[in-house]
């Protein structure tokens, strides 16, 4: 006898704002009637912090010394103890996404050391000799777009051997000059990052130009705090020895889930940066870093 429990949210994209109501159905599929002692739904929002083994010891990292932060946890009953007839039964539910107290609901974010996740769990308790059933379904919480306008903050940049830092032998560098601009570093998360880049000159042929989106996660804990930068995605915008003097578009879509509006809290921070990486044919790697501030408008 197999009983299949499933949660189906009405919204195809599963994106909800605060104070909205999650509407959907619990679907129970079974050949025969199912006896149960109640079906309930639990909504849970958690921030999972993990320490990287780089900043703390391996063991500490492994034992995950930071406790998850609970953002929301509420429960409703969908069905009273009883029997569900055989076949497919759909029980509709409505569950408001409402926070208790003065807690702040952060946006869903999947990172490496910081994870903000919202789930909806359906539990079916069953009498003896039958296992309780449970089904979890993630939904995405997105902040209400802010009313305020973002100040466009265009950035012009020039990259040449002279502008570089961290260079050991400046003399051995080939000559090159790359100009460009970003339309904004205060980015709206739903809009792509745009800009332009011109290779004015380059002694050595260019192999590739890439945009690297980097997340910078900071976790505070008893021993201090750990700050780690990891790559989210890498988008190539130029391949091969591009035409000099011709502007090449900078264009990057912020991936969903893996980005969220820049977040600063007492326990953890999530920030984003973008690197323009120029790889020369002799495998010289030139990187220019731009901190970004993401927001939702």
């Amino acid at each position, binding site marked *: 006898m197999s009983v299949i429990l499933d949660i189906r949210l009405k*919204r*195809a*994209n599963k994106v909800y704002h605060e104070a909205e109501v999650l509407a959907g159905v619990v679907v129970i599929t079974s050949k025969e009637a199912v006896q149960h002692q109640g079906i309930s739904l639990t909504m849970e929002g958690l921030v999972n912090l993990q320490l990287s083994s780089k900043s703390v010891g391996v063991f500490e990292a492994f034992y995950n010394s930071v406790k998850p932060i609970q953002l929301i946890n509420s429960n409703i009953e969908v069905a009273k103890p009883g029997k569900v007839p055989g076949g497919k039964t759909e029980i509709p539910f409505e569950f408001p996404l409402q926070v208790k107290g003065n807690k702040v609901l952060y946006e869903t974010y999947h990172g490496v050391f910081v994870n903000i996740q919202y789930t909806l769990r359906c539990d079916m308790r069953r009498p003896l000799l039958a296992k309780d059933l449970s089904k979890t379904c993630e939904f995405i919480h997105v902040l209400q777009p802010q009313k305020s306008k973002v100040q466009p903050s265009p950035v012009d940049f020039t990259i040449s051997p002279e502008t570089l830092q961290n260079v050991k032998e400046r003399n051995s560098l080939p000559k090159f000059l790359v100009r460009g601009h970003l339309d904004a570093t205060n980015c709206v998360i739903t809009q792509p990052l745009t800009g332009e880049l011109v290779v004015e000159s380059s002694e050595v*042929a*260019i192999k590739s*130009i890439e945009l690297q989106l980097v997340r910078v996660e900071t976790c505070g804990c008893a021993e201090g705090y750990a700050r780690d930068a990891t790559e989210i*995605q*890498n*988008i*190539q*915008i*130029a*391949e*091969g*020895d*591009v*035409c000099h003097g*011709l*502007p*090449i*578009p900078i*264009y*990057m*879509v912020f*991936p*969903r889930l893996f980005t969220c509006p820049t977040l600063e809290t007492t326990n953890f921070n999530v920030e984003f940066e973008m690197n323009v990486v120029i790889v020369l044919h002799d495998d010289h790697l030139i990187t220019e870093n731009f901190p970004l501030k993401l927001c939702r408008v």
Partner: protein
Amino acid sequence: MASVQWHARVRKYGAELQRCQLEATPVEQGDYHPLKPIIVTDSRSRRGGRKGSTSSSSSSSSSVAMDPLSSMMEGTDPLSLFAAASASEVPTLSHSSSSVELGRKQRENEDEVGADFEPWSAKRGEILSRFTTTEKLSINLFMGSEKNKASSPSSAVSEKVRTRLEELDDLEEGSQRELLNLSQQDYVKRIEELNQSLKEAWASDQKVKALKIVIQCSKLLSDTSVIQFYPSKFVLITDILDTFGRLVYERIWSMCSDPRPQPDSFSVEDVNDTAKETCLNWFFKIASIRELIPRLYVEAAILKCNRFLNKTGIQETLPRLTAMIRGIGDPLVAVYARAYLCRVGMEVAPHLKDSLNKNFFDLLASFRQIHSDTVQNQLVIQRVEIPVYLTLYSPAIHWILQCVAYRAPDVLLTEMMERCKKLGNNALLLNSVMWAFRPEFVAARATDFIGMIKDCDEAGFPKHLLFGSLGRSLACADPAESERLPILNEAWKVITKVRSPQDYINCAEIWVEFTCRHFTKREVNTVLADIIKHMTPDRAFEDAYPQLQSVMKKILTYFHNFSVLFSMEKFLPFMDMFQKDSVRVEVCKSIMEVFIKHQQELTRDPVILNALLHVCKTMHDSVNALTVEDEKRSLALLINGFIRMVSFGRDFEQQLSFCVEARATFCNLETVIIQLIHTVNQLAMETKRVMGGNHSRKTAAFVRACAAYSFITIPSLTSIFSRLHLYLLSGQVALANQCLSQADAFLKAAVSILPEVPRTISVEGKQRSSEAFLLDFINSFLSTLLVVPDHPEQGVLYLVRGLLNMVQDYTWEDNSDAKVRVYISALPLLAAMSQENYLYTIPKVDSNETLYGGDPKFVAEISRLCETLIGQVLDHLKTLGREEGVRRQGSIAFALFSVLLAHGDLRNNKLNQLAVNLWNLSHKNGYCDTRTSVRTLEHIKQQAQQPELSHLSDMLLRLSLQSRA
């Protein structure tokens, strides 16, 4: 049964004819007459109502003149309606499933792509066949990203099993495959396999795998090793991308809940959330593809899906993708990426011209990349010459320009041209401009173009190709009258300097069309002379037969006057360049086809005759033992067409000698020989006509010569029936021309070869009994014999007897009545011969009627012969009395009865009795056709009303109809 006394009925042909004729009554104007021409004035007004249609076709003068067909159709014929509908609905870009949608939308939107847009599918094959390589290729596929997967399985799985599992997983995850050393065929096959596995993955719901395949495939496009193959590679891989784009589009479309939106005209509001979300997912997924080229191609492939998300999606995406291409360093890769984008753009949103233009301007801006060091180094490593390298660009640039120029205003084209000029008249670009822009546009500026071609830096792109492109445009559109000659002069000046014969002929071939179109034979002659001069050294023409053939075809298209054509000095020398037999025959055939099609009047022009005789001889000489029947037939048809067009007017002797010559020349083609015999026979009759039937000594001799020609020609034929018929025909002609001994000889010859007729002959490849053909022939032979006078030195009815003897000796098929049928049909002839005046005679030829003058001895001889024949027939009837023969017995008896009725004198009791007996015999077994019997009886009744045939009424009483019980 005792022998029967034959008495032929006396016939008065004149009186009978008079009796049979209908009375002529004049037809009044306006009277109804079925043969009067029906004039239908169909006012084809598209009236919807049924009532209107009956009156819509009105008639004049005739009462039933309404055309029933058109009235059925209510004025519009459904076929033409369909045709009209489909004409505007010609598939445009056949690659996509959307072609029909485009077609439908076309009527609403003027901007859409019409049938005059050469679709990509047309270019595809050309590119694939043009850009090939013998070098080894490699495919590098890297699926998935988890490299360390192998280390994770537990140790329980033995090493061996694991590797096997991995092999199975091959395409699934984390496998990197590099296929090296593939030949071109292998490569194409692999790509096709990938295309298949893409479809399979999609069908089995492995969307991620499908996407991976597509990404990997488009990644191959960034690899420019074996650069000569790149255009073909592009074609192959974009096929996969097209497949992918279609799959994604269809899937998302199918997700739109019912009622499904119209495939072509749905708006964003019609799309439900699930479909939108899926679509969005695809775009997010694609936006995160690491490499530039796959990201670009895959996004372009599913460009159409933007329609699910918002109205302006495509409009915004196209320029962005266009700009993105700037990031591609390799100019070749970039230009093909642009071509792909233009292709998708034209398909999905043909009204968005701006991004097309932008593509082109970007292309111009980055054009100098072609000569950058990186490219040069690459070429050196791959050992590819610059001119070869540059031609790799042509398909892509052609395509881009074609898209840009499609229905573009002249202003834009002029601007484009100016921009090209600014770029230092780059030859490669110029070439594509001439290819892609409207021929009329190019033609109007031909002089400018020539100037530009002259000015442009060669840059490795050969000028003859440029002139070739210009010529192609000028072949379709005419430049201004005054410019034509200078254009030709300028162009030819360059063309004639081209060294390589292959390049030369490729270019010259194109310009021949222009020359033929606008100039006279003098210029064409000069051009031909130049071609000969270039192609003769080292037998260069051997490698250029297709081009030379095309030159010939073009000349023939424009010069239909063959005397002009052959008076071109260089035409025949030009023909001599076709030295390979098969090609030569092909060319000759095309010449003859044009001749037959376009020569209106008979000709005696010695130039034409000589030349065409030569041409025909060439065709004829190509016939050998291995030539198939169809080929022979088509050759013979062409030669016959030629022979029919030859006429020397009144100069009959010349014509005869032409035929003699032709016979010698075309001795291997039987059909031609037959035609020649017909021609000569016709010649004889024509002579007779000219002389008004009275031959002079000279013409008599000539006519005899004609007969002699036929007589000696006929035996060379192998087909026995052709021989028989020709003997008969020639005999008739000889007779008509009063050549008695010749006629005699013909007929005798015909009789003498009768025994050779095989019992079966092959008709259209099937074995058939020859009996029916033979009977036909004998019957018509018999009817000729009526007018043939007996030979003075031979016995009475020499030929008839000879024929009947042959018939008797001939080995007929077993169980066949053919012999008896011949006997029965000989009876009417004999009856006719015994008349005082014959049914027909030949003017100026004395038939037996005059020779014998109704001599009783002659008549008795005839009667005796008849009696023998009837006796034979009756004997045969007896043998048929048993079992299965009765049906045949009945029909033969009836046939004999009919002959007796028509030709025998039934006042004679014995004959009368015989007739009645035959009637009864034919009805005895009930196999006769009652309808025929009834008709026969009616006929007899009618005949009996004539005074001299009143005896028939008595007989009628004795003929009883047997009801079929």
